[in-house]
Structure formats: structure tokens, C-alpha cells
């Protein structure tokens, strides 16, 4: 119990791959990112509503889930703000 766990990046690799693939194939990443944002927010709304009636233990678990989904959303917003740069960067690399 006293040993700290190795921090593990909770990578949503499919999310990341889809964005990169969309950009590489010339598809609009914004559309995918907007749809993904909606899907994430929907789950966050459901979790937030469920937390209202949850026990303390369950609400801590829900908080854990919310923070992780929020991390994805922050990345989505971050990625949404710079798709043009990503395209340029990838064109150089390819």
C-alpha cells in the first residue's frame, strides 16, 4: 500500500490515431473532434448526474472517471486549436 504506483498515461490511442489518420488522409479533423467532444460531454453529463445520488465511495470513482474523460477533452480542445500546424508538420515528415 505504501509503494507508489508507476504513473500510467491513460492513453486513448484510438482517439489519437483517428485524429492523425484524418489529418494524414486529408479528411477534416474538426468534424471528428467536434463529434468526439459531444460524445465525451454526453458521458460527463451522465456521470455528473449519477454522482448526485452516489455514495461517497462511488462518487470518488465517478470523480476519477470524470477527471480522465476531462483530460481527453482538454486534448481534443488542444488538438482542435492546431490542426493546420499538425498538417504542415506531417507533410514535412511524410
Amino acid at each position, binding site marked *: 500500500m505504501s509503494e507508489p504506483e508507476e504513473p500510467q498515461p491513460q492513453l486513448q490511442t484510438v482517439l489519437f490515431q483517428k485524429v492523425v489518420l484524418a489529418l494524414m488522409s486529408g479528411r477534416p479533423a474538426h468534424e471528428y473532434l467536434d463529434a468526439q467532444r459531444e460524445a465525451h*460531454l454526453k458521458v460527463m453529463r451522465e456521470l455528473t448526474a449519477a454522482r448526485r445520488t452516489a455514495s461517497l465511495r462511488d462518487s470518488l470513482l465517478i470523480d476519477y472517471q470524470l477527471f480522465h474523460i476531462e483530460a481527453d477533452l482538454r486534448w481534443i480542445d488542444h488538438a482542435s486549436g492546431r490542426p493546420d500546424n499538425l498538417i504542415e508538420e506531417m507533410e514535412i515528415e511524410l
Partner: protein
Amino acid sequence: MSEATPLLAGRGLHKNFGLTQALRGADLSLEAGEVLAVMGPSGSGKSTLLHCLAGILTPDSGEVIFNGQRIDRMLDGQRTRLRRTVFGFVFQFGQLVPELPVLENIALPLLLAGKGRRVAIAAAQAWLPRLGLEGLGHRLPGEISGGQGQRVAIARALVTGPRIVFADEPTGSLDSVAGDQVMELLVSVAKEEHASVIVVTHEPRVAAYADRQVTVRDGRTVQPAVVGGAP
């Protein structure tokens, strides 16, 4: 979303500040009793949109309609009356009057609307337990925590019985626990009072308290893909 006439609607809103285009054709509607989150990165125009919808700013073009009335065409005095009687406001730092105790801060909108002091203070007093502020009525804003200050701001926004509460980053200065408490109270008390809420935030956890989210990007509202309604 219902097909009924919205309580508040902004259509084709444009607003420039010098050469900066803050809004470039933003559209937004709010139903009665709805809690709506307006999200977007810094500088996206979300606060400008809120201010135009609340009648604090006048858009350069486009229209803002509240309850069938064009707010953007109203005279300043009419808009001020509207803001004092049917709109309530919660800002990031509360913007409480530092010299006034909590109770008088809550009573302030009623006093400004011409209510007698005794009536206003009695009405304010009733809000203290609803927002977990018992025993704090005589403290000054500087003597309470940030979360308590925001709860005072919520009480002040709702004391007049507004139709809409406009909240601009209401948890922006709070840690996540205090922020959750503030949002839980804001949403639950507003629903009890049948008031609609528009909350501007860049935090997804805050937006998740809303029935619906709209994103502002480069001065325009992004219409979301339909993935399901509010829980």
C-alpha cells in the same frame, strides 16, 4: 430540444472591438428552465457572446430576443431595468461589494430595484440556509472563502427571482471541490426557482452540469452533433 419559441435567442451576432472581431455571426438559443454551457478556448468570443445576450454589450449587427422583445434595440435605461429585474449575474470573482456584509450583498439587487430595506434583508436572509451560508450573514466578503463568496454571488443573482442567470466562469477562481459545490448549488437552486442558466466556461467538468453544451470558436457557435439528450 423543443420546437417552442426560445426564452432567449441571439441570431447572427457580430461584435468588433477595434480591429478585433470578437463575434462573427454567432447564434444561440435558450429554452425556459434550461441550463446551457457555452464552452470555448480563451479569446473565442464566449464572454462577449454572454455579454451581448445579457444586454451588457450591444452587438454591431444581429438580434437578441428575450421573451419576444429585441434587447439590442432597447434604450440603455430599459436594458438596465431588464438586467436588474429578470436577469441575474454570477462572475468569476463574485464581484461582491467588499464593504458590505454578506446579507447586504445578497439584498443589494432588491434595494437597487426599490424594495424597502427590511423586506430586502428578510428576503436575503432566507437565501442563507439554501446555499449553506448559515451564520455568515454578518461577515464581510474578505472574511469568507472563495467558494462561500461564489455562493453569496449565486444568492444575489437569484434573490430577485430572475428568468435567466448568466454565469461567467463561476468556478474559475476555485479548486475542483469548491467548484463542484458551487455548480451543484447553482444548478439545483436555479431549477427549483425555474430559472434558466447560461454558464460560460472552459472547464468540461463545469459544462457537464448543463443540460446542453455549445462551443464557440473564432466568434461563431459550433452546432454540436446530436449524440443524445440531457440525462
